[in-house]
């Protein structure tokens, strides 16, 4: 059978510090007409580089060093043509269009979006300017850009991130390509926007019989949208089969381990995450044998002695790159299942209240003109009302712009709230100045999202972790100081011998451990975790989640866990608070929130999260998502969600619903549940 697109043995190298590093090592992929395939892998697995190599978009210092690319309609290997040749350019953009990860930077800021789409149409469909313009407007209509006639002349910066990515889709599809490559196209976007866009891509693709390659690190997305999946690890494809089979009977130990490590929205509460230990190999020092060997639970001695395993068909239509036989894996699997799994520690929250936030409001003034006249407010958060008990984890979820970061900063007293009380251990700290806050600083710590920017690059690990000890005079002398620092290193699972290194010598996961050690150093009562795992690779996330849970039960910590990933929040929290546009819309115990969702926004949000299981995905009810998150400067009157809500009535447009009890420790701000 002839495929629409076929990549054979692609090999791409990068030259760093005079050394050739293989980023893609012998990857073969095919695609049939109308098919949607997924390529999943962690960062550095070579998935994007493979796509870029196919289109000859690899720039210096990278180079495609081997392989063949065939596309229907051309006999020759496309890699034989020069990157700037007519044939290559016809394939690139004409036959294969690509959408990239960063919507904010992928469109040219000094050209109108209309021009950019028009240009693509004229290049590939060979039509005149006016016709191209008509088609561009049609495409904008197709991706639901309102007023496309007028917006044709807008510049990219006049659109939100979600809109820009739609424009990218419009542009990519405008040249009637046979294949669309979405390279982490929705990763930077909110989950509802992500769902909207992927749904749109699928619908358009099915309508026009375009094949799609979805490149992502998110197993949920491929489970929901793709028909066949390639799993990549360290520059190679390790497994390939159709979606259902991959999730039902994963063959490769890496795929199996991955599925055991990621939290899922439909998990029972007591589910234990089993992290994949270690790190993916550094491509510069990748072994000649199986690259997953070091982290593999199934490994046998011959894996180490043999060459790198090749992708072979194990069952019909199921390919895996592993030396072990079916039988060996079955025995090993039983052995692993039999191993006593460390029970996820359960911490019983106490009755005492650790933190109470009452009617907190924070506005940011907008100034204009020479004399900085105040012209309005960004209403970041309003009427925030909740409490956290000692020893519990309160999850705070919401999309970007919902005010969760502002809320965290108010509690940390980076910002001073205009109104309301923040009662921490019985003291209202809402109005405290820097000096008054000082004794409280050590009692409230924070873990940051980005492990790269949250550690001072010029300090050693030791002084990062130990700074609080000195600032708050928690140690008496040098000796005690190093003892305590060593202890903190051990608590978070780092070797104290590493303490003289600087942050850039650590991996992402290790850095996050350092961040946790720093947060623990002053023996705090409350830790604010601001998206602590979202910047980490999936195989590392479970390690950090487990560490946080373990520390909580060991040290009796209280967590405020801010995240956009609802599956993670469900896994770690005892109660969950949902925010939308600066307001709390729902608070409930974890199980209750997920099983008895009340607020229409929460329902939308939950339905947008893909689950890494195609069978579950098929049976799920979808709540359609309307519109976009409005901007904070022109927030709709009445209920903030009313113009996107199917149940909105007259009252919702006029009045803001207050948070009310709906029984079972469940509070919701919606007029539907007033009685």
């Amino acid at each position, binding site marked *: 059978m002839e495929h629409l697109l076929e990549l054979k043995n692609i090999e791409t190298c990068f030259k*760093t*510090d005079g050394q050739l590093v293989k980023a893609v090592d012998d990857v073969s992929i095919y695609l049939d007409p109308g098919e949607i395939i997924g390529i999943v892998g962690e960062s550095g697995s070579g998935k994007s580089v493979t796509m870029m190599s196919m289109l000859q978009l690899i720039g210096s*210092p990278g180079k495609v060093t081997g392989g063949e690319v065939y596309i229907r309609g051309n006999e020759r290997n496309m890699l034989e043509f020069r990157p700037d040749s007519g044939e290559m350019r016809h394939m690139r953009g004409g036959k294969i269009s690509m959408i990239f990860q960063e919507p904010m930077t992928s469109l040219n800021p000094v050209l109108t979006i209309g021009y950019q789409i028009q240009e693509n149409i004229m290049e590939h469909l060979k039509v005149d300017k006016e016709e191209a313009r008509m088609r561009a407007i049609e495409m904008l209509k197709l991706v639901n850009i309102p007023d496309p006639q007028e917006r044709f002349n807008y510049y990219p910066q006049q659109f939100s991130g979600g809109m820009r990515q739609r424009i990218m889709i419009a542009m990519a599809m405008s040249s009637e390509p046979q294949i669309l490559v979405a390279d982490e196209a929705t990763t930077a976007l909110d989950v509802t926007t992500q769902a909207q866009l992927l749904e749109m891509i699928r619908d358009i693709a099915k309508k026009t019989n375009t094949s799609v390659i979805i490149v992502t690190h998110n197993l949920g997305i491929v489970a929901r949208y793709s028909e066949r999946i390639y799993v990549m690890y360290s520059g190679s494809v390790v497994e390939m089969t159709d979606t259902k089979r991959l999730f039902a009977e994963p063959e490769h130990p890496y795929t199996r381990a991955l599925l055991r490590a990621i939290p899922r929205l439909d998990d029972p509460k007591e589910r234990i995450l089993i992290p994949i230990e270690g790190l993916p190999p550094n491509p510069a020092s990748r072994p000649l044998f199986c690259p997953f060997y070091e982290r593999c639970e199934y490994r046998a001695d011959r894996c180490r002695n043999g060459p790198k395993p090749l992708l072979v068909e194990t069952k019909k239509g199921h390919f895996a790159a592993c030396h072990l036989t079916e039988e060996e894996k079955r025995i090993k699997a039983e052995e692993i299942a039999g191993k006593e799994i460390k029970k996820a520690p359960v911490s019983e929250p106490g009755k005492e209240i650790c933190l109470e936030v009452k009617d907190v409001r924070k506005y940011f003034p907008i100034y204009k003109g020479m004399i900085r006249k105040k012209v309005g407010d960004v209403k970041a958060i309003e009427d925030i009302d909740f409490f956290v008990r000692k020893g519990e984890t309160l999850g705070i979820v919401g999309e970007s712009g919902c005010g969760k970061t502002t809320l965290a900063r108010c509690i*940390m007293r*980076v910002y001073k709230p205009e109104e309301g009380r923040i009662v921490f251990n019985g003291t209202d700290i809402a109005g405290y100045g*820097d000096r008054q806050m*000082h004794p409280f*600083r*050590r009692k*409230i*710590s*924070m873990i*940051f*999202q*980005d492990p790269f*920017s*949250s*550690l*001072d*690059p*010029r*300090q*050693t690990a030791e*002084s990062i972790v130990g*700074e*609080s000890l000195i*600032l*708050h005079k928690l140690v008496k002398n040098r000796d005690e100081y190093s003892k305590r620092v060593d202890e903190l290193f051990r608590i978070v699972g780092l070797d104290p011998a590493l303490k003289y290194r*600087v942050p850039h010598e650590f991996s992402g996961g290790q850095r996050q451990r350092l*961040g946790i050690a*720093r947060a623990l150093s*002053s023996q705090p009562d409350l830790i604010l975790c601001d998206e602590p795992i979202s910047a980490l690779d999936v195989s590392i996330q479970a390690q950090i989640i487990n560490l946080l849970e373990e520390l909580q039960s060991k040290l009796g910590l209280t967590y405020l866990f801010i995240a956009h990933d609802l599956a993670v929040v469900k896994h770690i929290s005892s109660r969950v608070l949902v925010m939308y546009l600066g307001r709390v819309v729902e608070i409930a115990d974890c199980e209750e929130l997920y099983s008895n969702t009340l607020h229409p926004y929460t329902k939308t949000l939950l339905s947008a999260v893909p689950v890494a299981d195609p069978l579950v995905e098929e049976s799920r009810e979808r709540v359609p998502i309307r519109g976009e998150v409005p901007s904070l400067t022109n927030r709709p009157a009445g209920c903030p969600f009313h113009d996107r809500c199917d149940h909105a009535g007259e009252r919702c447009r006029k009045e803001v619903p207050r948070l009310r009890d709906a029984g079972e420790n469940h509070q919701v701000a919606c007029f539907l549940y007033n009685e």
Partner: protein
Amino acid sequence: MKNNGRWKKTVKILFARKIAAFSAAVVLLFVAVAVFAPVFAPYDPNYADFASYLQGPGKNHLLGTDNYGRDVLSRIIYGTRVSLIIGVFAVMIACVAGTFFGMIAGYFGGITDDIITRIMEAIRAIPQIILAMALTAVFGSGIRNLAIILGISSMAGYVRMMRGQVLTIKQADYVMAGKLQGNRNFRLMFKHILPNSISPIIVMMTQQVGQTILAEAGLSFLGLGISAPTASWGGMVSDGRLFLLQNPVFALTPGVCVAVLVISLNMFGDGVRDALDPRLRGEV
């Protein structure tokens, strides 16, 4: 010892580049000439031998003599001192003052920032050399005054650079982490912000030494810098231009020295920039 590894690496990368290493060698040569001027110079730079004025290059005087019969080579050698001293000190003054004001402006923001920024913009609106000339009208010249004047007139660039740096770094999570741990303003500034914003300042310094030397030569050429009889490159060009026909070497060689020194300094500066900027090394 803390960042020893990092600095070592930087230095290693710096000298791994042939151009950077070569230009460093040239700069060092000039420094050596300046320090050991009495050893290198064949004559006293101010000894006037009226009998042999305006001689072309010859056996006795390698580069000939000037209109007072002074040895051009010796005067060039002594001129190196003036150029380097003024270049280095002016840059140090500009850098220390500029970094300080830039940090204050960027860190505290608000009205402090407004005042500093406006004043610096006013200074920048006047081209550096014109500002320096106006200041010499007031303060007079001489090595010390010139260093101060050239320092002040090039300070605004550092303020601007440092302010931008601080504004960026202030956004970084680690600065917030530092604040949340209970660091006070000045500790935060000097322990966390300064070390992280210093590399572009260092790069700017290395590149500015050359610019300052050029400016000094210019001032001296116009007769507003180092005054006679002290030997300075710019002054020599100025003296020599009247005798271009008789002894072109007299007027033109000091200019070549300025050019060679400034080019080497700039190339060295580029090397420092490449070595300090991890983006250019392909590691982030």
